[in-house]
């Protein structure tokens, strides 16, 4: 079994939500999904499609043909029961009954086959629903974990609040951060100006004594100018005196290249 690239795995998402992956692909994709937020998001993005398809299938009626065959075989079975109970002289009818039974059974079986196919399909659809729900559950677990980290960060004994103020390029912007050496930095900004697709904001730890600033995180705000992130504090880094945000090319820069949009002292 050859290794698949992330792109190839991601392409399996749509067939996965349909429940149409072959066994090996499914196992590979599920193993990968457990640790990949991007693929999980891809799976989630197809959820409305599957829900919509499910609603169209639920409204389907059994075909008139199938219905006729099922009703027909039930009626024949009733006739057969009546015939059998009203047939004392076994010597003559005895040879006919097994033939009637066999025919009725064959007809009933023929009517049942499409039904088994329907059941099999329904089972597969339910399996897809279960997979969808487990993906959703994994997603919620992840969010819960993030929320717990947020709380533990805010409650960390060494957490310090940092209020960042908007500077000349964005006077209306503002941000608040909590810095903890052990738990990382939690940062929420509002009213940041929207930026071109090839740009990103970058959060910096500005160190005392003129040492080079250290990048904390690169981020883009949502359409409302809001951004929220948690970043790790590099081990061995001196305590920063200031947190600052600059505008950089997408992907970030090794060192800040523009005047800060936001600045705040770490008290």
């Amino acid at each position, binding site marked *: 079994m050859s290794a698949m690239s992330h792109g190839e795995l991601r392409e399996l998402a749509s067939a996965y939500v349909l429940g149409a992956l072959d066994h090996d692909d499914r196992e590979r994709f599920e193993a990968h999904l457990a640790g990949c937020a991007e693929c999980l998001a891809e799976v989630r993005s197809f959820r409305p499609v599957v829900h919509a398809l499910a609603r169209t299938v639920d409204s389907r009626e059994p075909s008139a043909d199938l219905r006729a065959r099922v009703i027909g075989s039930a009626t024949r079975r009733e006739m057969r029961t009546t015939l059998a109970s009203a047939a004392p002289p076994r010597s003559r009818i005895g040879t006919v009954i097994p033939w009637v039974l066999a025919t009725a059974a064959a007809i009933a079986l023929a009517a049942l086959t499409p039904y088994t196919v329907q059941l099999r399909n329904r089972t*597969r659809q339910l399996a897809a629903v279960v997979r969808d729900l487990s993906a959703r559950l994994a997603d919620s677990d992840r969010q819960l974990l993030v929320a717990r980290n947020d709380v533990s960060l805010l409650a960390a004994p060494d957490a310090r609040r940092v209020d960042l103020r908007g500077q000349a390029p964005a006077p209306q912007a503002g941000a608040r951060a909590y810095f903890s050496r052990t738990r990382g930095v939690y940062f929420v900004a509002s009213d940041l100006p929207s930026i071109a697709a090839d740009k990103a904001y970058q959060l910096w730890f500005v160190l005392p004594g003129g040492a080079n600033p250290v990048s904390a995180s690169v981020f883009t705000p949502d359409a409302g100018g809001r951004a929220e992130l948690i970043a790790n504090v590099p081990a061995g880094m001196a305590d920063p005196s200031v947190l600052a945000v600059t505008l950089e090319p997408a992907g970030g820069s090794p060192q800040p290249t523009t005047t800060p949009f936001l600045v705040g002292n770490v008290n």
Partner: protein
Amino acid sequence: LQRVRRALGGLPAEQRKALKLAYYEGLSQSEIAERLKEPLGTVKSRIRTAMIKLRDSLELDQRMREPQAP
């Protein structure tokens, strides 16, 4: 429901067929390839393209129905 039907109807016949076999008949991709006598890769990309189109048309529709932000 109407939207899905319309979106399904808007797909090229071969994509719709592959999608229907996958969803309504519960076939796997290789079973579909066998049934349609098509290469597996073709079936995979048809299903993926169809799913992406349905997703996009549902999203577009959703966005159009949302009230515009002031």
